[in-house]
């Protein structure tokens, strides 16, 4: 009837092409081995079809009708109704009958499990395969072998970033005569500077150095006492001691974890959907990162845990979950941070899942490997020697955990989610925490039970009392018989007792409802108990869980998706790493992590390869990132792209030397901070001279330190710190933010102020306005490098936002507490706290006169309390000081560090 409707042709035509493309997939790639006698249709044409249409209900996790369709053997075994296929007889095969009848997949239920109906062309392909006898061919997955790689040449491997890290002996440290050299960093830099006729800039003064180092390492300015102590410290190693002290501060981890969370794309919510569901367990990963930086966890170990922590120890059979096992698992949250809408059935289809996987691979590629791996998802990389094959080999490394055909929903929402519940949050925390949780639950349970028991007891007693009273009202002659009746169960009663029961039992037996009606005291007692029980119920804690990534075993096979389209599967690939980063001859060796493990061990093998001491990229990418955070720009300016389209290193030998030192120091990040920060280069002044403008305008030679704007967190934390409102409690669930109707998102204060910004909830659609204005990034999926913008919303926020103004008032109170009412001392104190220095005489004079004029102006204003009439002089003074403090919070020197 609708034969002439062209839409049907348009739609199915598209699908058909995709399906038919699948038929010829294994042979149309010139690099694929061609087997001459290969049947027209093999299991590799069929597996992708059943995986995307059937196995969600007839596969690894669900066995509807006891049927598993993942392999030929399982199809032959069949389910409740017998074998699914009869080789050679498609028309007699149950699976074909069900499919042709349109019974499978059941169309009214496909959305619940996020699949699309099977296409007629796919059914016919399956029928053809069965008709041919359901042939299986042995195709070895395409993996690296000892044969030369046809797609990546040795010439490709000569590019600097793909070349293994040289040994220390192979790196020449320039000899420099300059007395400015404090360590080899300076020698490397001076060689280039002197060639241009420049040298390192003069050393910055001490107050600049402590402010710079404090912001760099802890994200906060020095306290006045710390500042004053450093300024008078005559020890020649005072500066080195300062660096050590800052590195030992617990605030160090809170600062440097933030850099890593940018790279990982940390967020406390799923994103992508209107209901931006929270991830209540994500904070544990944030805490893990903070603790790891504070403990100076070796970087190779840090990566190993984050990429393959679940394969480091057998947590499922461990008698005790130790801190270490817990850390291993929490660390894998690294690859669970991408925006993820797959908790919802309508955004959990195959392409949605592939997006999530692609984002995670992008986090790993751009953040850790310095490679734009994502470009090879749909085609061979345009600039770098990364064939599309290598992208899918890498996906196969992760297949045990990221299997698009065996997917775990990202979250669960009681009313919105559909289908089968799956939980990405693993109920594995340290045995100590679990015991503490269980003990807490136990205490709550016991208290509830004891309250209930007490109430029952009281009820019985009161009921008894009422019964006695009622009994007393009846003739005494009956008492004995009535008591006997009440003590006897109905089926044991004599005829007389039954008669008495009919007559008197309803009066004498007082149940709970009746008691509540007649006994006001008991009613009160009962309500009080109910209230306490409700309170106790509310104090039950949810089961502690972590957001983790783990290998589930039995991954589905991985096929190259041509043009990135899961409907166009190509050749079968096995696990592997980008060939250009290997010698091109050594196979990628995978072993189960321990005997009998269901885990594939692929990610562990990958992580061990990634953390080899001579890996071309791992150490280089990380030291470059550390360098960027200290010196303002990377030696390789494109932090996330060390490939040919990225920037060339400005100082390649320095980069290699730093990377080698990093490995030599046991991948210690703190050793790198010490090395970089104790160089003369780091201690340079930030003043720009005409010579700089002429010879090194972009500061690529590091001829001075950059003048740097505080980033969002430094600014927010500093505002709290100077105003004495910083609540330094650490770790734990994220602090809430509040969305005002006008769009302002503002942090909710605790009783003791506000905690540092790293503890603030990072809900993707509700980022605190202040942080967002100052370039806190959206994580889509991560942030490789923050930008540093100057936009009018920043000025507007700092001038007019209520929280900032409130903090200015607190700042003024702090100054008054420290300095009393003397304007000169107040100005001095403001400078010390906010700008880490004393005012010059001119500045002091400017401050005092401003305070005087502001006090006059405020004195003319109505008082806060209108009943008091004109403002009192001290109130005007206080408000003037608050205005002064607010203005200093808005001045450039507050926002920029030299």
């Amino acid at each position: 009837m609708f034969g002439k409707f062209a839409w049907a042709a348009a739609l199915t035509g598209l699908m058909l092409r995709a399906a038919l493309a699948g038929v010829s997939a294994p042979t149309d790639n010139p690099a694929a081995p061609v087997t001459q006698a290969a049947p027209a249709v093999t299991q590799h044409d069929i597996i992708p079809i059943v995986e995307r249409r059937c196995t969600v209900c007839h596969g690894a996790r669900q066995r509807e009708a006891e049927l598993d369709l993942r392999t030929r053997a399982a199809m032959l075994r069949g389910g409740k109704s017998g074998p699914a296929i009869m080789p050679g007889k498609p028309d007699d095969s149950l699976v074909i009958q069900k499919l042709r009848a349109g019974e499978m997949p059941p169309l009214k239920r496909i959305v619940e499990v996020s699949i699309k109906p099977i296409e007629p062309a796919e059914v016919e392909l399956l029928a053809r395969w069965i008709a041919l006898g359901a042939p299986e061919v042995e195709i070895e997955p395409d993996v690296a072998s000892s044969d030369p790689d046809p797609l990546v040449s040795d010439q490709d491997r000569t590019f600097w970033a793909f070349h293994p890290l040289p040994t220390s002996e192979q790196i020449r440290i320039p000899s420099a005569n300059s007395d400015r050299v404090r360590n080899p960093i300076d020698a490397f830099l001076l060689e280039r500077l002197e060639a241009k006729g420049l040298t390192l800039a003069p050393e910055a003064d001490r107050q600049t150095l402590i402010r710079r180092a404090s912001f760099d390492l802890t994200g906060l300015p020095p306290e006045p006492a710390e500042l004053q102590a450093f300024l008078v410290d005559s020890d020649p190693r005072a500066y080195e001691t300062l660096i050590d002290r800052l590195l030992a501060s617990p605030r160090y981890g809170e600062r440097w974890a933030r850099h890593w969370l940018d790279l990982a794309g940390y967020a406390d919510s799923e994103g992508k959907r209107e209901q931006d569901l929270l991830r209540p367990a994500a904070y544990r990963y944030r805490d893990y990162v903070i603790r790891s930086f504070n403990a100076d966890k070796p970087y190779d170990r840090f990566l190993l845990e984050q990429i393959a922590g679940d394969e480091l120890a057998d947590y499922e059979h461990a008698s005790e979950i130790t801190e270490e096992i817990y850390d291993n698992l929490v660390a894998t949250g690294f690859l669970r941070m991408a925006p993820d809408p797959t908790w919802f059935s309508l955004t959990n289809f195959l392409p949605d899942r592939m997006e999530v996987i692609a984002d995670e691979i992008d986090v790993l590629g751009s953040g850790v490997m310095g490679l734009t791996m994502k470009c090879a998802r749909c085609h061979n990389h345009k600039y770098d020697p990364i064939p599309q094959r290598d992208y899918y080999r890498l996906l196969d490394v992760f297949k045990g955990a990221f299997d698009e055909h065996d997917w775990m929903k990202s979250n669960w929402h009681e009313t919105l989610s559909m289908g089968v519940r799956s939980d990405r949050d693993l109920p594995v925390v340290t045995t100590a925490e679990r015991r503490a949780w269980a003990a807490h639950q136990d205490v709550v349970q016991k208290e509830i039970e004891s309250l209930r028991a007490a109430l029952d007891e009281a009820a019985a007693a009161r009921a008894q009392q009422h019964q006695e009273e009622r009994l007393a009202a009846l003739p005494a002659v009956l008492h004995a018989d009535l008591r006997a009746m009440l003590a006897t169960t109905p089926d044991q009663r004599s005829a007389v007792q039954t008669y008495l029961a009919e007559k008197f039992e309803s009066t004498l037996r007082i149940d709970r409802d009746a008691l509540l009606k007649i006994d006001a005291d008991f009613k009160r007692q009962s309500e009080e108990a109910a209230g306490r029980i409700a309170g106790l119920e509310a104090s039950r804690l949810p089961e502690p869980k972590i957001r983790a990534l783990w290998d589930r075993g039995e991954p589905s096979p991985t096929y190259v998706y041509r043009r990135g389209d899961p409907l166009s599967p190509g050749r079968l690939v096995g696990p592997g790493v980008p060939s250009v980063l290997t010698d091109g001859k050594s196979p990628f060796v995978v072993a189960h992590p321990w005997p009998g493990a269901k885990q594939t061990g692929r990610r562990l093998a990958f992580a061990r390869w990634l953390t080899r001491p001579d890996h071309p990229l791992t150490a280089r990418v990380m030291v470059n990132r550390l360098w960027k955070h200290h010196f303002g720009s990377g030696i390789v300016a494109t932090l996330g792209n060390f490939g040919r389209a990225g920037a060339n290193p400005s100082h390649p030998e320095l980069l290699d030397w730093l990377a080698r030192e990093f490995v030599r120091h046991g991948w210690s990040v703190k050793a790198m901070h010490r090395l970089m920060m104790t160089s003369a280069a780091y201690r340079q002044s930030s003043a720009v001279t005409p010579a700089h403008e002429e010879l090194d305008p972009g500061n690529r030679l590091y001829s001075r330190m950059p003048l740097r704007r505080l980033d969002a967190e430094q600014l927010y934390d500093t505002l709290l710190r100077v105003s004495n409102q910083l609540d330094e409690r650490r770790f734990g669930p994220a602090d809430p933010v509040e969305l005002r109707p006008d769009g302002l998102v503002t942090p909710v204060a605790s009783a003791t102020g506000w905690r540092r910004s790293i503890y603030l909830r990072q809900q993707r659609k509700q980022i605190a306005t202040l942080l967002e204005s100052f370039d806190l990034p959206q994580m889509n999926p991560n942030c490789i490098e923050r930008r540093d913008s100057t936009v009018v919303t920043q000025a507007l926020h700092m001038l007019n936002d209520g929280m900032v103004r409130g903090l200015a008032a607190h700042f003024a109170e702090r100054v008054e507490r420290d300095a009393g009412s003397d304007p000169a001392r107040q100005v001095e104190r403001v400078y010390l706290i906010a700008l880490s220095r004393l005012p010059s005489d001119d500045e002091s004079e400017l401050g005092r006169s401003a305070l005087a004029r502001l006090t006059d102006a405020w004195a003319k204003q109505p008082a806060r309390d209108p009943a008091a009439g004109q403002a009192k002089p001290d109130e005007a003074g206080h408000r003037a000081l608050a205005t002064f403090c607010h203005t200093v919070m808005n001045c450039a020197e507050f926002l920029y560090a030299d």
Partner: protein
Amino acid sequence: MLDACEAPSMPVPVTRRGFFDRVAGGLYGAALGYLLSRDLYGASEPLSASGPNGSADPRRGFDLLPRPPRFEPRARAVIHLFMNGGPSQMDLFDPKPMLDKHHGEQHFNRIAGEIENVKDAGALMRSPFRFAQHGKSGMWVSEAMPQLARHVDDIALIRSVYTTNLTHEPAIYLIQSGKMGPGNPTLGAWTAYGLGSENQNLPAYVVLDDPIGLPINGVENWQAGFLPPIYQGTRFRSTGSPVLNLRADAEAAPEIVELRRDLLARLDRVHRAKRPQQPNLDARIASYELAGRMQLAATDALDLSQETAATRELYGIGREPTDSYGRRCLTARRLIERGVRFVQLYINGQIWDNHTSLGSELKKACDRTDGPIAGLLQDLKQRGLLESTLVIWGGEFGRLPIAQLPADKDERKAGRDHNKNAFCTWFAGAGIRGGTTYGATDDLGLAAVENRVSVPDWHATILHLLGLHHEELFFEQQGLKERLTGVHEARVVQEILA
């Protein structure tokens, strides 16, 4: 003329007169003038210094100064009437007699994969609205939009747009930003990046959202993504402070504000004097200046009392149900007049998402918007602004030819479910061949089959009208060139252009 992305690093010349227009009343005239010809953004030197061919990043910094387009533009400004929710094409612009003929016939098994709520799927459903041809062009419009029907000769209708996902969030991300997820610059942000603005006291890209609430995807609808944040859409509110934090909740007396401003200037002057050659500091000072000027400019632009009663009446202001949308339409015209490049209008409450009671709900949505939009077209035309302004109407997808039934299966309350394979959109104004109907769907209106227009095609066409080329407008990020149309092939729909 050079493409926006290959512009020389030379500053755009500022005329003497333009200079004084812009800095009038400013404390930092010299600094500001310097900046307006240089940059208002970040570091003076881009960090990613070399691209694939060793080419330097084409821009030294980022600003909102007017930039020359790639070629002669047809449109100077855009008003985007975003109809979030998915307006029903076969009930508004795409009549389907075959639906009348086959009304009530089952069709589910043939299209199950194209339905979002499979459990509610009903039979084929005819439109409850009558269609008629209008204007000289004879364009078909349903009775639900009587006011717009009077302007069909000014609009070009595309009936064959299609998208790739049938769920709101991904489909909205795609139509706004060319990609199906968050984090990418929207059309308005790309436009601001490509062309800057004619008015430096207002944002280049203004969003007029519904005071009752945000559309689906919220503020992500106007994000700058990986572009610098000056290109992000700025929400203007019709009540209270027009821009967030433009004024304090409790503003101090003018005398104190003045003292504070003076003190800040002095403190910054001391700081600045010791740090020559630091353009970031100038940029920051200028941003504080702009804060002051924007307060005046935004307040003025939003003051609809400056309009005549007749004009307000034209937009349906002062009566229901058109008052709210009418105000936004009139504000849009006032912003365009002041040189704002891209104005985007939103409606809260998913009024076009008619899963139930199509007959009454779609009519309500039309009643809220039809008059104001017709008024906007008429007003733009009579003021000569339509020649240089592109007006765009459309949502993120269309709707299905079958009924979607409520839980009680009452057909009288039937609606229509989402449809990614066909929807309608129209353009009016600059460069548009009025009266055009382009593209066609199948007999049931399920899928675009003739002259199909993809979302990237739609984007390319809009950029083209603005004098930009979708392949040449890019932003370099970590060595990669990112575009609105991404890696997709896109074509300009020449057939609707004048």
